[in-house]
């Protein structure tokens, strides 16, 4: 929390100092909530398969346009969530409810995560550079990350090429099932390269194509993921390779059907060195109403993936060099549908800001017994 307070203070100070007659600032508070349930979690700590999880996540976004070519932006987040594998945590150790039976000081509590991200975007002629940096911390995971994105504009911005590099220096603190305690933090690094091109096709159509390559190393297991090594009561920590190479390619297409209605189609292909292959297809419609004061988005998303080559739903015959029962690495399909709405009521004279209110409701269902309802509420102010 101290880090977030420092970040908000520094960002506010920077915005005040940099404020000029040109400066325009947007602030948006979004409260995300997730209500997840399902009994397909073969990795669950206590062998129940229970993956119930509740998450509340308020995020504050600030974006200020300092002049014609420069903007600064940042976000601060504070999550509070229950365990996905045991419903309750020991508030001191992060162990699940089942692990608390060994005499740990079990308190039905919630875990928290705090973090922030910030960046600057500056345009130099036909180029735009955007460096970013961020930090987040929770009981068993820390992340320090940064990156640089460069965009090049061609032909009156009809064609835009973009490339970026991002580095994550993370640390994870796994729960040792056999010893019933946390080990120390272990390093996990992620380096990601991506590139994309955007082309305006005509006055009503635009298309984007992108690729990315990500290499991860170090501790890649889940901090509390386990496998069965015999009966349900005999469990051991999952073991995964210390390297993972990921490749993805995506395409996005938008077509304006009318002045107030647009059709969107997104597709993503993914392949990695653990033999997961995935496809994502997401058609959606975006519509404006009430003289563009209101905006409505309706989407459907279909996702499918193959299983990681190390995945096994059943028991392992003793400790293996590589073993996982993480349901996120299983073969499954997922369907998602949702509705998102925002509305900016007409402001009165003397109002300090233009306000926009928003809400979202999304339903997500996986074929391997996991479902979630995601609700979002947002309020934004433009100064």
């Amino acid at each position, binding site marked *: 929390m101290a880090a977030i307070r420092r970040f908000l203070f520094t960002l506010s100070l920077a915005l005040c100092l940099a404020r000029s007659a040109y400066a325009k600032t947007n602030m948006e508070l979004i409260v995300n909530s997730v209500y997840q349930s399902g009994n397909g979690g073969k990795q669950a700590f206590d062998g129940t398969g229970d993956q119930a999880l509740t998450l509340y996540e308020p995020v504050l976004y600030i974006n200020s346009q300092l002049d014609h070519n420069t903007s600064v932006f940042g976000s601060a987040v504070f999550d509070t969530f229950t365990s996905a594998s045991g419903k309750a945590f020991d508030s001191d150790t992060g162990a699940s409810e089942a692990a608390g039976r060994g005499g740990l000081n079990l308190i039905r509590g919630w875990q928290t995560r705090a973090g922030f991200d910030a960046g600057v975007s500056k345009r130099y002629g036909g180029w735009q550079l955007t460096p970013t940096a961020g930090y987040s911390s929770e009981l068993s995971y820390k992340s320090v990350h940064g990156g640089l994105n460069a965009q090049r504009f061609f032909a009156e911005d009809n064609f835009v090429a973009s490339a970026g590099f991002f580095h994550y220096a993370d640390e994870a603190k796994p729960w040792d099932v056999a010893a019933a305690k946390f080990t120390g933090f272990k390093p996990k690094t992620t380096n990601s390269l991506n590139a994309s091109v955007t082309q305006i096709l005509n006055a009503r159509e635009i298309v984007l*194509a992108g690729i990315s390559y990500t290499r991860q190393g170090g501790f890649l297991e889940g901090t509390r993921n386990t496998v069965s090594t015999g009966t349900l009561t005999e469990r051991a920590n999952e073991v995964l390779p210390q390297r993972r190479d990921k490749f993805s390619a995506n395409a996005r297409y938008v077509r304006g059907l009318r002045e107030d209605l647009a059709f969107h189609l997104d597709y993503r292909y993914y392949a990695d060195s653990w033999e997961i292959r995935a496809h994502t297809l997401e058609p959606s419609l975006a519509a404006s109403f009430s003289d563009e004061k209101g905006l409505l988005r309706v989407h459907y998303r279909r996702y499918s993936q193959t299983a990681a080559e190390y995945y096994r739903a059943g028991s392992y015959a003793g400790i293996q060099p590589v073993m996982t029962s993480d349901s996120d690495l299983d073969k499954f399909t997922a369907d998602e549908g949702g509705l998102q709405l925002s509305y900016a009521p007409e402001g009165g004279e003397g109002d300090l800001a233009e306000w926009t209110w928003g809400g979202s409701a999304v339903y997500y269902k996986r074929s391997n017994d996991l479902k979630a309802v995601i609700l979002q509420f947002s309020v934004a102010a433009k100064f």
Partner: protein
Amino acid sequence: MGCEAYMKHIVLALLAALACGCVRVHQIDRETLSKQIMQFEPMGNRQAFLNDFHSIREGASGGVGQSAGGGCGCN
């Protein structure tokens, strides 16, 4: 179909799409394109959270439009 075959189809489709895009649309003709409904992510920050949720709950995390870092009840 193998990974290489998929990639070949994707690359060909993208090249075909971009090859169609040689028409230059001047700034003054971009009234429709500048509308919020035409943005790739018209709901902005709210869609970013959905991307994060997918990257936590699915094996295909990281890369374009996806968080590569961890956290957020991902066990």
